[in-house]
Every structure is written in C-alpha cells, then in structure tokens.
C-alpha cells in the first residue's frame, strides 16, 4: 500500500497502452456521445428557456428531485446493509439471493411496474393488508418512490458489493484483532474504505431514480404534481410538442452528467 503508490497523479505508475486500443475505444465513445450531441443540436435554443421553465416542467422537475432524493435515501438505508450481507455474510443461498437482487437491473422497467402492481397494488399480494391498514400505495407519490427504489437499489448494491469483495477483509480482520466489534469495524473500517464505491453507488442510484420512467407510469400513473416526474412529462410532451420533449431531455441529461461528474469528483478525492 504505502511505499508502492507514488503521491502525485502525474506520476501514477503505468505500463503504457497499446496504440490500437484507441480506435475501438473512440468508436465506442462516439457511439455513446454522438446521439447526445445530435440531440443537443436539435434543440431550438430560442424557445429553450420558455420550454424548460413552463409550469408543468418545473412541477415535474421539482417532483423528480424530491422523489429521487427520498428513494436514494431508501436505497442507502436498505442497500448498504444488503450489500454488506451479500459480500460478507455466510449463509446458505447467498449466491442465489445475490442473483435475484440484480434482476430489477435487467428487467424492462414496465415489467417492473407490472410486478410492483402485483405486489403492492390494491389487488396485489400485500394490497389487502395495506388497505386494511389504511395505506394506499399505488398512484401516490409513495408509489413513485417505491418504483424508483426498486429500480435504483440494485445499482447501489452492485457497486458497493463489488467494492467490498475487491477490498477484501484484510483490514477488517486486522481491526477485529485489535478488539473492534463488528459494528465498529463496519463504521470505522469497512465503510470508510469503500467510501468511493459507496459515493458512486449512491449517486448512480440517484441518477437512475431521476431517469426512471417505465415502472413509474405503470405503477404510479401520471398525475401532475403527484406522480408525473420529469421523464413522464417528457414522454407526454412528445405527443404534443416534441421540441419541448427534447429540451426537457436535455435538462435530464444535464442533471445526470452533473451527478455523475460529482461522483467522479468524490471518488477521486479519496
């Protein structure tokens, strides 16, 4: 650890890159960037400010930010323990659980919405129980948060769990040998050591929640101010005013880039 890593970024030891990798790498980057660029080129900049500050757009953005913040919090509260248990716990069925937990990551979000309805809808598995308890989930802001948490949680779990496995248990074992109880180890060793992954996982989860569309429209509906988040607003605007849709998409891209850049900043600060 210590003496082998030179202090300054400019002097990061490296073994060089083969020249040829640049070609496919730049092709790959182009494939990802060109569409964003082309979309930007399409924006009618004259009407842009008006489009993105319309009442419905502002309401949608505010709702999106609020719900994304809440679901990110939920992801942290549930996801950190889940990642820790998956990476460190020793129990039967751990690798099955690990696979299952990743499913929402690869599920088309609309299918996720169907599944959420099946679980939490009025006619769903827990529907009656919830109804008796006087809790209505579907088609409320709660449903938006639930849908976002459902799709975003695996992002946090996969980031953190991967980092936990890679980091290994050497430092934790050393701390345990010094008499640290498991909670102390978690708080003072595990989480600080995986802080970069935790930060980037959290912000990926936030960004994913911000962009969530399919599960939300299926499970939460599209009520202005209640469940109509920015991606839903974009989808609806597409019908009447595609220019507005593009403009709003750009706002979403900007927020996403800001969030990811922030992640990188945080990660490299450590």
């Amino acid at each position, binding site marked *: 650890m210590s003496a082998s890593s030179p202090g300054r970024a400019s002097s990061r030891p490296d073994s060089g890159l083969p020249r040829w990798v640049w070609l496919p790498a730049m092709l790959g980057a182009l494939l990802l960037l060109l569409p964003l660029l082309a979309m930007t080129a399409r924006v009618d900049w004259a009407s842009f400010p008006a489009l993105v500050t319309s009442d419905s757009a502002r309401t949608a953005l505010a709702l999106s930010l609020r719900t994304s913040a809440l679901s990110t919090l939920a992801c942290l509260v549930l996801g950190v323990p889940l990642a820790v248990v998956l990476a460190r716990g020793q129990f039967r069925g751990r690798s099955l659980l690990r696979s299952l937990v990743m499913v929402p990551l690869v599920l088309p979000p609309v299918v996720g919405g169907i599944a959420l309805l099946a679980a939490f809808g009025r006619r769903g598995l827990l529907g009656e129980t919830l109804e008796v308890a006087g809790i209505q989930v579907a*088609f409320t802001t709660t449903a938006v948060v639930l849908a976002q948490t459902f799709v975003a949680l695996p992002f946090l779990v996969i980031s953190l769990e991967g980092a936990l496995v890679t980091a290994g248990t050497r430092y934790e074992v050393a701390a345990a040998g010094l008499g640290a109880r498991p909670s102390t180890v978690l708080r003072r060793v595990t989480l600080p050591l995986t802080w970069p992954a935790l930060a980037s996982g959290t912000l990926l989860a936030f960004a994913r929640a911000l962009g969530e569309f399919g599960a939300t429209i299926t499970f939460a509906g599209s009520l202005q101010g209640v469940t109509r988040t920015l991606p839903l607003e974009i989808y609806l605007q597409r*019908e009447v005013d595609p220019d507005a849709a593009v403009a709003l998409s750009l706002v979403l891209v900007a927020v996403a880039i800001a969030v990811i850049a922030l992640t990188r900043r945080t990660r490299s600060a450590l």
Partner: protein
Amino acid sequence: AEGSTTLTVHAAASLRGPFEELVELFEEEHPDVTVRLNVAGSADLVAQVEEGAPADVVATADTATMERLAADGLVTDPTPFAANTLVIVVPRGNPADVAGLRDLAGDVDLVVCAPQVPCGAAAARVEEAAGVAFTPVSEEQSVTDVLGKVRAGEAEAGLVYVTDALSAGDHLEVIEFEEASEAVNVAPVAVASGSERPALARAFADLVTSPTGERVLTEAGFRRP
C-alpha cells in the same frame, strides 16, 4: 389554488390538450375543487383503474378499452363525447410523394399502429374498407411513436388520428382521405363506480359532453361522435 376537494380524472394521452383546458374551466366553476389529471395510454389507464387507482372520471380513446372497465363494473354509463378519424401524415416535403391511401400500398416506408392498440385497429378497418394491403415497416405501440417516426423523417408516411396530426403543427404534412369515415374511433367518458364524489364527477363528465366541451374538443380536431 389548492381546493379542499380533489377530483381525479383519467384521460387517454391523446386527449391531454383539450382535457387540460376543460380542467381549468371546471376549476373556475368550482373554486373549492382541485382536479388531478392522470394521462396515459388507454391500456395503461384501464390497468391502473383495475388496480385500484383512485378515480372519479375516466375518458378513454376508444370504446373497446372502456368496455373492459364497464364489464368489470368499474365505470357506469360510458357516454361517447368525441370522434377521431385517421389521416395520413408525411414528413415535411413529402419525400415519397404520397397523395392518397393507394400510394401507401406501394414502395413507401409506412408506419402504423399495431392492431392491438386502438389506432391500429382503426387502420386495419381503413385498409379493409379501401381494399388495399399495407406493408408497414413498423407496427408501433402508440400514435406517439408513429408521429415520432414520421416527424423524424424516418418513415415516409404514417396513419394517425387527425387530432395528433394537428398538435404536431407544421412539422408534418397532413393528407386526408375518404375511407377515413369507415374507421371512426369514438371516445367515451364515464363516472367511476368507486368515486367518492359521484355528483361532482358527473358534473365533470357533463362538462365534457356539454357544448363548451364540444367547442374545446373541436378546436383540437375532434369531431362530434
């Protein structure tokens, strides 16, 4: 202003424009009422109401979808309030020189809705009435997707509702055709059975079917049912 009573109206995505206007009018008439408008594809709407979404008024884009709700007893008295017909849309400049329905059967990149969705069902009826056979390059999920492809110039022609064509403004050229009358889609409105404010819900439904409603809908391109 946030009223003390909330009314939830579910409307098909294609009805969003006029319904937003109607909601405003309704709220002016009923200052203590706030109307929440839920807009989604008709199929989504039906699924949501079936799943217990709070609902007072439901308006779908075609009768078939509304019938699914009626059959389950989730709505009462669907009333037709507007009709929508198909038109041909082509990208600006009409690159494939489409003049009428017959041209769509030729070597044209045509997109239509899939037969499973209302506008696709209508397209199928037109096809039959006109005795032509379309060879679409894509059967889209919704009108929006058809419009998107044509607007982007990706497709050379599409079949959409006249109302959608109007809202797309001058990004498209619209071509009307005779056989459209063979496939009129009628949009019904109904009060939800589960409504806790049936009178108020009725009042909204009445506004939709009233002359005021008709005026707003006509401005958006709808016709009388």
